[in-house]
Structures are given as structure tokens and as C-alpha cells.
């Protein structure tokens, strides 16, 4: 199929339809409302379900009910809206149902702002709702990647019967890029879910889709079943990209999504100036590419790691967990909806390289830069 120029939000919406997710529930919130607007037009064309609910609390729960049918279901929102869906996400994970949710993140906390941010990392990867559960979380850094990940998200959701969250930010949602949709896409057999879905107790025992287990042993059993799925995700679903990593690098950058893309530009420019830096980009935020990142960190020449995020430092905690203090982990972040420029990233990288050239000692863990704090 030819490449077409599309806005991120609309491309993701189209990808969901092509993946067979013809059931969409939503509530408007900037900067992702184009997903809803696009699907309001598109869903009727494909005979799908489009419903604008009264709140994100209702959306999350409509998704819960809708997923119980065994059909592919989808929603999209932005930070404060995703917060309201946390109740349902916990229940959906507990009841082991598949669904795909898109979070086009904006600055927070609270009403925050409407510009791009990456400050929902903790919420997306560490739970958000109550209970022992995880959400499989994918972070694209281009519109094409957002399309591809959205399409595979539905199959992953069904493989694990678990919510899958795509996290982008206002930039991914709002910018335009050429994208290509696969000519053919095997959306899988949607009737396969009829083995567990609520379809009416005709000629079989009634099915109960629930997350309540008053017997602690039964609840523990359910939590352990969930836990085993998350372990399987760790073994099978880790995704990441290495960019210009070479054995001579002294500094390793770790960044994801839009921010990683900006780092790539900075790295390209530095390369032209004769400075060589590599980037490790986690694509799956849960499961986190722990082993793979650790291999890069352990490379002989690497002296320090620089984490760059559009937040006050959230993923940096996962990086520190992986690095386990063997090398210094530094952090640079802007937040509040400010997208650092490649120049700003370059400056951070250069300063750090200069510093480590001056004093190849010390293990100072970085914090939000002074500039970022002022911003």
C-alpha cells in the first residue's frame, strides 16, 4: 500500500480498525481527541461500534463489558482521563480480559497542561490501579511505529488476556508523517475468544467473568496466574532499539518515545562533530528490556549513563534498578509540556562528556537539571 501523510492520532485510529478493533468507547480530551473524531466517522463505515460516554470512568467500564463479549475493543485518552480509567483497568486485569488503550500523555499532575509529556510512566508501568497487576506497555517514537505497535497490541492483548497500553505523547498524536498500512493483516480469528467470553449459557455451564475471590487461597491463585503471565511477557515481549551504539562509546543515553527521537537527532549531529554517543531505546516499557540494557551498560568503555525524559525522572528509576550502582546514572529532564530541542539534548551530552573527561571519578546520581527546575 502507498504511503500516506497522516496525523498520529488518526493513523493510530485507522490502525485499530485494520487490526479488527471495531468497538471503540471514548470521552474527549486534548491532545488525542482526533482519535475519537476520526473513529466517529470511520466506525459506521466498517459497521463498528462508536460510543462517546459520559466520563472516562464509564469508558473504562464499557470497555470491561465490551471485552467480555470476546470482541476486540479499544479506547484512547490522555493523562487525566487515563487516571479515571484506572479503576476499570485493575478490574479488567483481574478478570483477565483483553483490551487496548492509548494514552497520548500530556503534562500533569492534575489538570496540568495540554502539551506533550512523559510523566505517566509510573502510572503506566507500575500499576496505577489497585492490586497485583501489570499492563503490557508499548512506547512508539514515530507514527509508523505507533501504527505497527497498535496493530500488534490487539494480538498481544488476546495472547495474554490482559490490557495493553500504547503510550505516546502530544507530539506523536499531533504531528504528521507518512505512514504505510500493511496490504494484508491477519487480524486472527475473533471467534477464538468464544472459549472464555460471555456468549450465553446455551448447552454449557454458565460463565462468570469476575475478579472477586473471597477465599484468600483462590485470590492468591488468581494473582499468581497473573504473575506468571507477566513473567511470560518478560521472556517473550521485550522490545527495544539500539541506535549508533558502538564499543568506543563512553556515554550511553537511555530514552524512549518522542524524547528518544530527539536524542537521535542530537546523536546524528554530534556524530558529524566527531563525537560518538549511542542510544538505547526501550520500546516495551513493561516488560522493561532489563537484560539487554544491562549488556550495554556493562560494555567496557561505558563510563556513565544519561537518562533523558520529558518528566522529572520516572524511567530513570528503572534504569537505576538495572544498573545497580555499577556505573553512575545521570538524568536530564524537562516537563510541564516542554519538549527539549536536539540542541538542548546535545548540550547535556557534551557537558557530561566534558565533565567525565575532567574527572573520571565519582558516582553522582543526577537530578533534574537546574534549568529544567526553572522551566
Amino acid at each position, binding site marked *: 500500500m502507498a504511503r500516506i501523510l497522516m496525523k498520529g492520532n488518526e493513523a493510530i485510529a485507522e490502525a485499530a480498525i485494520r487490526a479488527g478493533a471495531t*468497538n471503540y*468507547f471514548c470521552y474527549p480530551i486534548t491532545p488525542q481527541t482526533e482519535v475519537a473524531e476520526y473513529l466517529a466517522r470511520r466506525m459506521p463505515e466498517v459497521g463498528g*461500534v462508536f*460510543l462517546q*460516554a*459520559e*466520563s472516562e*470512568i*464509564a*469508558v*473504562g*467500564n*464499557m*470497555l*470491561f*463489558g*465490551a*471485552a*467480555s*463479549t470476546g*470482541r476486540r*475493543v479499544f479506547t484512547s485518552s490522555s493523562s487525566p482521563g487515563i487516571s479515571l480509567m484506572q*479503576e*476499570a483497568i485493575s*478490574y479488567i486485569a483481574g*478478570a483477565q480480559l483483553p483490551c487496548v488503550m492509548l494514552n497520548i500523555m500530556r503534562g500533569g499532575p492534575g489538570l496540568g497542561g495540554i502539551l506533550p509529556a512523559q510523566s505517566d510512566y509510573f502510572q503506566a508501568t507500575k500499576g496505577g490501579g489497585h492490586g497485583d497487576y501489570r499492563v503490557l506497555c508499548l512506547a512508539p517514537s514515530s507514527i509508523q511505529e505507533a501504527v505497527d505497535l497498535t496493530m500488534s497490541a490487539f494480538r498481544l492483548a488476546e495472547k495474554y488476556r490482559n490490557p495493553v497500553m500504547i503510550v505516546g505523547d502530544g507530539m506523536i498524536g499531533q504531528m504528521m508523517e507518512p505512514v504505510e498500512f500493511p496490504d494484508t493483516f491477519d487480524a486472527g480469528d475473533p471467534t477464538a475468544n468464544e472459549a472464555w467470553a*460471555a*456468549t*450465553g*449459557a*446455551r*448447552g454449557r455451564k*454458565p*460463565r*462468570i*467473568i*469476575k*475478579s*472477586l475471590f473471597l477465599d484468600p487461597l483462590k485470590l492468591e491463585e488468581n494473582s499468581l496466574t497473573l504473575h506468571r503471565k507477566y513473567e511470560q511477557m518478560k521472556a517473550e515481549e521485550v522490545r527495544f532499539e539500539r541506535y549508533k551504539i558502538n564499543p568506543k562509546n563512553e556515554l550511553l543515553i537511555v530514552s524512549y518515545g518522542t524524547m528518544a527521537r530527539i536524542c537521535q537527532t542530537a546523536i546524528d549531529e554530534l556524530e558529524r562533530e566527531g563525537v560518538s554517543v549511542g542510544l538505547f531505546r526501550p520500546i516495551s516499557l513493561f516488560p522493561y528490556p532489563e537484560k539487554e540494557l544491562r549488556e550495554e551498560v556493562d560494555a567496557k568503555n561505558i563510563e556513565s549513563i544519561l537518562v533523558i525524559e520529558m518528566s522529572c525522572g520516572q524511567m530513570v528509576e528503572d534504569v537505576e534498578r538495572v544498573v545497580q550502582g555499577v556505573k553512575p546514572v545521570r538524568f536530564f529532564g524537562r516537563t510541564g509540556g516542554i519538549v527539549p530541542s536536539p540542541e538542548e539534548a546535545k548540550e547535556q551530552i557534551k557537558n557530561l562528556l566534558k565533565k567525565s573527561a575532567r574527572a573520571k571519578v565519582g558516582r553522582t546520581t543526577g537530578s533534574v537539571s537546574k534549568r529544567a527546575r526553572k522551566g
Partner: protein
Amino acid sequence: MHIEQAHKTIFRRPESLAETVTHYCPGCTHGIIHRLVAESLDELGLRERAVGVAPVGCSVLIYNYFNCDFLEAPHGRAPALATGFKRIRPDMIVFTYQGDGDLASIGMGEIVHAANRGEKITVVFVNNAIYGMTGGQMAPTTLAGQITSTCPHGRDTSVTGYPVRMSELLATLVTPGYIERVSVHSPMHIIRAKKAVRRAFEYQTSGTCFSLVEVLSTCPTNWGLTPTEATKWLEKNMFSYYPLGCFKQPDSAGVR
């Protein structure tokens, strides 16, 4: 008279009810309401395409007592689950079973909007004027002056407002719907309640409209009364504030 005729079964457990013992307190009318729902499903031949949505409240385990598919909703959200399900499977019969704390408090938003969208679902709304499961706290439906564990001196309407009449409130919506309030505290009322529940399912089966039956119910345990006293208390105190009757039917709907 033939012996077969003499032994004709005239009363049995509805097929839609599972053969099990419920956990409800003695004298609690949740069990009667379950039976009315099950009988309606049986009579209309709906069991095999029915999916119930369980609430959070004393009837949270309702799925163990029914013989059909069931989903279990977060507190108050049953109408949203039912909406999601029914929109995708309009061929199935979807009903929620909700207490007053569930539907009129935390789930106020979900029920109002499901009704206003005219979701083709059936809601069985059990009003016992109290939170049963958590041990007798004030509900939005608790009567003025009624004593509960969180209004030990009686509900003070200057502080907490007046009890919410859900049927009347929902009947103000323009969207066509069927809304009736019934009671199950006496055999005569049970027979009337049954008609309403059945009618509610019929409106769904024919794809006509949203339907809700509010059922006045007893909570002897948290009212601190014997089952017999409880039925008397219901009649004496609830009837005047929660009048029985049909508040809305599809034919009477229209822009006011």
C-alpha cells in the same frame, strides 16, 4: 382422577436459578427478587442468551445463584459494563442487579447516562434504604430521620439533603424508557412486582427501550428488626416517600 394429574408440578425452582443456598440474612427480600428475575427469564425463554451484571453490595455473589452468564462490575458501574456488552451484542439480553448504594450513590452517573442514552438493558434496582453489605451505613435513599451507623442520630436533611427518588428522577429524562417502582414485602406486592420485572425484560426483548424496576426491599439485619417487623416498617415508612407505580413507559414518552 388420574394419579399423574394429582402429581402435576405446580411450583418449582426456576431453571434460571442455580441449585444452591444463598448467603442472604433470614427475612431479606433479595432472594425473592432473584426469583422474580429468574422466573421472568424462564417464562420468556431468555436464560441461554442472558448475561447478568453483578453489583457491589449484598448481592455481589448473585452470579453464584443464577444459571446464566454473568459479569461482575466495580461498585456502581454495572450500567457502563452492560452498555459496553449490549452495544456489541444487541442480540443478547443484558440485565444489571444493583443496590441503592451501588446505583444511587457511586453509580449515579452511570445509571443516569445509560437511561438517557436509552440503552436496551434491564435494571433491577433494589432499594432497602441502607448500605447492607458494609454494615448499615447511610445510603442516598435513607429516609429523613432514619437511624444508620453513619447517621446515629437519624438522617439530618439539613446536612445530607433529602433521600433521592431514583425512579422519579430518571422519569424526567426525555428518552423513552420504562420505569416502575414495586415492593416485595407482601404476597400481593410480589405478584405485582413480578409483572413489572417481566415487562421490563419484554421491553428489552422487543428492543423497545431502557427498563428499570425499582424494588422496595427489606434489610432486617441493618434495620435492627425481625423479618416481620421489617415488612411492616417498609410499608409504614417507605411507601409515603417512595410511592409505588409506573413513572414512565415508552408510549408516554415525548418531549415535554
